[in-house]
C-alpha cells in the first residue's frame, strides 16, 4: 500500500518546473475561487490533466483558494453584480442567458461571475509572480528546509525510502 501511495505521489509531483507549478497554482485559483461544481471547472480539470502541470500544487492550491474564497465572496458578489448589471453588456448577457450551455454554467449568478472575472484577471500576473517566488524559494530557502528536523525525520521514514526508489530521485 505504501508503494501504491508513493507511486501516486510520484504522479502528483512529476512536473516540477516552476512554470508547471505556477500554471497549476493559477488553475487552482480558478477552481478554488469559483463554486467548485461550476461547469467551467470541468474545463479547468481537463486542462490540468492534459497539460503537464503539477497536480499536487493544483490540489493544494484549490484547497487553499477555496478557503480564501469564503472571505472574498462579498467582493466577488460586488464585482459580479456590477458586471451583470452593466448597461453596455446587457445585450451580451441576454444572448448568453438564452443559451442552455451558459445557463448550466450559471454565469448570471453574481458570485460565479465575480469570482471568474477576478480569477481570470489575476491569472497571468499570478503565473509570473509565482514563477519568481518559486525560483527564489529554490535558490534561497529550499536548502534550509532540507536541513530542518522535520525533513530529516521524514527522510528517515520507510515511506520516503520507497518514494525515492519510485521517483528515482537523487537529492541535489
Amino acid at each position: 500500500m505504501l508503494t501504491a501511495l508513493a507511486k501516486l505521489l510520484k504522479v502528483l509531483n512529476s512536473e516540477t518546473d516552476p512554470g508547471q507549478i505556477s500554471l497549476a497554482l493559477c488553475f487552482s485559483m480558478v477552481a478554488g475561487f469559483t463554486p467548485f461544481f461550476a461547469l467551467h471547472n470541468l474545463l479547468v480539470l481537463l486542462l490540468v490533466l492534459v497539460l503537464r502541470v503539477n497536480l499536487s500544487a493544483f490540489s493544494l492550491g484549490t484547497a487553499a483558494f477555496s478557503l480564501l474564497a469564503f472571505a472574498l465572496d462579498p467582493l466577488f458578489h460586488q464585482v459580479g453584480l456590477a458586471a451583470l448589471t452593466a448597461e453596455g453588456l446587457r445585450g451580451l448577457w441576454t444572448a448568453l442567458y438564452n443559451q442552455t450551455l451558459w445557463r448550466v454554467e450559471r454565469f448570471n449568478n453574481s458570485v460565479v461571475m465575480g469570482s471568474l472575472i477576478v480569477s481570470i484577471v489575476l491569472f497571468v500576473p499570478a503565473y509570473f509572480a509565482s514563477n519568481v517566488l518559486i525560483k527564489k524559494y529554490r535558490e534561497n530557502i529550499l536548502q534550509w528546509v532540507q536541513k530542518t528536523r522535520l525533513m530529516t525525520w521524514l527522510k528517515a521514514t520507510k515511506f520516503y525510502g520507497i518514494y525515492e526508489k519510485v521517483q528515482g530521485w537523487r537529492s541535489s
Partner: protein
Amino acid sequence: MKKWIRTPGLAAFVGLTALIGAVWYFFVDTWAEWAVEETGAFFVGAKVDLAQADVTFLPLGVTLSKLEVTNPDEPMENAVEVREIAFGLDALNALRRKAIIEEMAVEGVQFSTPRKTSGALPQKAGESSTIKEFAKDTAEKLEIPSFEVPDVKKLLESEDLESLKIVNSVKEQIEAEKTGWKKRLDELPNKETFEKYKKRADEIKKGGKGGAAGALAVAGDIQKLKADIDKDLNAIKKAKSDLENKVSELQKLVKDAKDAPFKDIERLKDKYGLSPKGIANLTRIFLGPKIAHWTRQALIWHARLKPMLDKAKDKKGEVEVEKPARAKGVDVKFAEKEPLPDFLVRKAGVSVELEAGEFSGEITDITSDQPILGRPLKLAFAAEKLKGMDAITLNGSMNRVSPEKPKDNVRLELKGYKLASMSLSDSADWPIQLEGALTDAVLDGTLEGENLNATIKANLRSLKLSAPFKKDNAVAKAIASALEGVNSFALEAKVRGTLKQYDLELKSDLDKILQQAVDRLLGDLIAKFEKELKDQIFAKVGGPLKELDGLMGGFGGIGDELSNRLKAGSFPVGGGAANSLLPTGGKKSKIKLPF
C-alpha cells in the same frame, strides 16, 4: 509541445468525469431527498421527512415516497402526509435550471397524521412576523353574562346613590332660600308700617286748615304719604314676584330630585342587572371563539403558503435580481426569448384520503412566477357519496399575476356532512358539545391584499347538543335545556376586515330559540330585581324626598304674608277729591301663589 501535453491525461479526465458521473448517479437520490427535506423545512419552519427519492434519467423524472410535513404548531403531528409524488421533468429546461413539470401525480394525501418523533426544529427558520402576529390570540374575548341575580342590599352598600346626593343638595338650597326670605321679610314694610301710615293720614286730615291754602297743604301731605306708601307697596310686590320665580326654580329642582332615584335604578340595572341584551347574541358568545380560532388557523396556513407564491425579487436598474433560496450571491434575470417560470407544475392531480373516503381533484399552474406565466393558480376538488358525506366540492384560486394586487379566493361546499362529536364551546363554565349532526355548509372567502372577506353559511339538522354548564341558576338551566332540545339550526358567520384586524359577525336562529326559552324567565328575574332595587333605593331616598315637599310648603306662608302686607297697604288715603289721587283707588291686589 510534447513537454506541455500529457496524453494519458485525457483518459484520466474521461475516467474522472465518468467517476463523478457515476457518483452523482448513485447519490442523486440521496441528494434529492436532502434537497426536498431542507427546502421544505425552510419554508414550513418544521421538519420535513422524505422516505425515499427516486430520480430517473430516461425519461427525466422524480418519484418521492412518503413525504411528511410537520405541523409547526403541533410537532408530534404531520400537517400533511403524502404517500407518493411522481412527475416528469423537461430535460432541456432542467439544464436551464427550470423545473417545468407538465403533469404531477400526488397520491394519498392525508392531514393531521401522528408522527413517531417530534418534528420541531431548533429555530423556526423562515417564520415571518406575520405568522407570529396570527399566533397571538386575536379573537375577541366576549364576556358571557353570569345570569346571577345580585343581592341588592350588598350592591347598594358599595354604590353611591346620586339621587341621595341631589336630594340633600336641593334640601340645603331650599333651607338657605327660606332663611334668606325670612330676612328679607323682616326688611320689608309690615302691618305696623302701614298702621303708621294710617295714623299719619288721619293726622293730615285733622291738621288741615281751612281755606284753599289749607286744602293745598293737605293735598301736598297726602301726595307725599301716597308716594311713601306706593314705594313700600312696590317693594312688597317685587318681593312677591321674586318669590314666585324662586319658588318655580326650586320646584324644578325638587322635580329633578324626585326623578333622580329612577335614574339610579336604571344605572344600577345596567351595571348589575340581567339585560335582555345579554342573550341577544349568545350564539356569537358561545361559538364565536371557535370560529375565530378556525379563521386564525386558516390565515396562519395561508401566510405559510404565501412565500411559495411570492418570490422575493428586486430590481437593479432595468434587470431583475433574485436571491436564490439556498445559494450565495444573487441571480440576475435577463429577458428570455420564451419566458417560463423557474418552477412550474402545469397540472397536479391530487387525491386526498379523508376518513370519509377519497377526495380528488387537480391544481393547475403552480408557480411562484405568475407574472411570467400570466395565469393564477387554480384548484378544483370534488367528491360524492363518501362515508358520512353526500358531496364535497372545493374550488379556489391564488392570483399573483399582478403582484401588487394579490387576490385569493376559495369556495368550499359540504352537503350532508355527518359531524362527529366536537366541542362547539371550550369555555370552562359554558361548555357546549356537539354529539352529532348532519350539515350543509358553504364557505366563501376572498383575500385581496390585506382585505379579508369571508362568509360561512351552515344548516345543521338531526342535531344533538349537550350543554353541561357549570353555572347553577335558573337562566343557565333554561339555556342548557333549550340547547339540548334543539334539533336543527342555521348559522351565518361573516369575517370582515384586514388580516391583522378582523371582525366576526355571527347570526343564528339559535339566538331566537334561546331568547324564547329564557325571555319570560329572564323577564321575571329582571322585574324582581328592579322591584327590589326600587324598594331599597326609595327606602333610602323616600324620607328626604318627603322633607323637600314639606320645605316647599313653607314658601306658601311667606307668600301669604306678602299678600297680607299688600292688603294692609291698600287703604284709602284722604277723602273725596283726595281719594281720586290714590294710585290704587282702594282695589285689593292679590298675588296668587302657584301652590
